[in-house]
């Protein structure tokens, strides 16, 4: 069946020699590549695929584990944070109460000291007055006895009184 006239190209002409060579060549190639190429290649690729699959599974597991750990730690961290905040709050509150207490105590103390001092002053004043009284009385008595015992003139009398009063003034001062 000549397809191209003018030339002699017959596309559907089967050359028996070519068929035989093709079949022989193909079978030889099939045998050689089967034994020396496809078998080891398929084995190697399968091994690699398996390994990759395993690695993927392992990484998935690891990731899951890591995520679990992460959430655990996050929870722990949260708890720690809350605790810390609580501690700080408590500390603040404690400090506040302490301050108030110390202030109150100091105030109390101050009041007490003041009261005590006032009392002390009062007492000292009373004591001083008392002593003054006693001294005055003694002096008067002394003066009187002196006046009474001595026979003195009116002028002397006057002088004595004035002198003693001066003494008294000095003592008082």
């Amino acid at each position, binding site marked *: 069946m000549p397809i*191209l*006239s*003018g*030339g*002699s*190209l017959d*596309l*559907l*002409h*089967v*050359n*028996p*020699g*070519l*068929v*035989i*060579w*093709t*079949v022989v*060549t*193909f*079978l*030889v*190639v*099939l045998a*050689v*590549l*089967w034994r*020396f*190429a*496809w*078998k*080891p*290649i*398929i*084995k*190697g*690729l399968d*091994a*690699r695929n398996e*390994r990759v699959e395993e690695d993927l599974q392992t990484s998935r597991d690891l990731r899951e584990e890591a995520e679990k750990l992460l959430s655990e730690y996050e929870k722990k961290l949260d708890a720690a944070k809350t605790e810390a905040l609580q501690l700080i709050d408590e500390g603040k509150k404690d400090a506040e109460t302490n301050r108030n207490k110390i202030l109150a105590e100091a105030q109390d103390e101050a009041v007490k000291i003041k009261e005590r001092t006032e009392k002390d002053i009062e007492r000292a004043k009373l004591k001083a007055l008392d002593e003054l009284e006693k001294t005055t009385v003694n002096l008067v008595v002394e003066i009187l006895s002196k006046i009474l015992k001595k026979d003195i003139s009116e002028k002397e009398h006057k002088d004595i009184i004035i002198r003693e009063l001066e003494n008294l003034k000095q003592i008082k001062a």
Partner: protein
Amino acid sequence: MIPILSENGFNVVELIVHHLQDMPLWHLEIAGIDLSITKRIMMMWIGVFFLFIIFIPLARKISKDPYKKPSRFSGMMEVFIDFIRKDVGEGSMGHYSKHYEPFLLTLFFFILAGNLLGLVPPLGEFFQVTGELTGLIHHQEGAGHDIPFLAKLWPGITSTGDIGVTASLAFISFIVIQLAGFIHQGIAYIKNIVPNGIPGPMWIIMWPIEVFGQFTKPFALAIRLLANMTAGHMIILVFMGFIFQFQSYAVVPISIAASTAIYMLELFVAFLQAYIFVFLTALFVAGAQHRH
């Protein structure tokens, strides 16, 4: 060789015939059968040589350490192998594909090598011509019309562009398909060719049709590959022929651009047709494994 540019002018048919016609390189006859080594056989063997030097070292490398990162080229080859195994084999036959993987892989790469080498210009002739032009190779006197030895080494023709080759491959596929049928279904395969649920009387018509179908499938495989591998080359040659036909420089850019475009398409078709051949074979094998 057929003169391309004769005194009568250029003949595009002669150009096409010259480039697409198989011809014997070394004559050989055994027991009355013409077993001459032709251009296509030579190119087929070059393809086989490439398959060997690509895949045997690759296999050695993989079996030495399967977990090592493959080089770029090996990685690409592994992608092809994986594709044929998973998408073509397992995709059509499921877990039964295991036993057919080496066959499918060999078939794919055998056809692919033939298709791709058909796109490489005849390197032998190229070297011969440049050698003669530069004076490095002396044209042998007395050799007459015989093809020079270098040109015989790489004649540059598509081995899969011949019905002899595609039919042989389809025949091998046919054998594998039928063997798969008998291995998986036993002798019942002969009966099970007819799909399930066909009423009794229909069998008289259906069975011969189905049997006939077993032969048309590989026939279609052979013709499809042949036509695809021939058509593109013809178009490229016709575009190139325009230059000589019109004897005008103005045609040159158009011809070059058009043939480059077709060449790119051919590159794609080379892969596509190898894939289709193997994919359909796998589908037919899967079809023979189980009753429908």
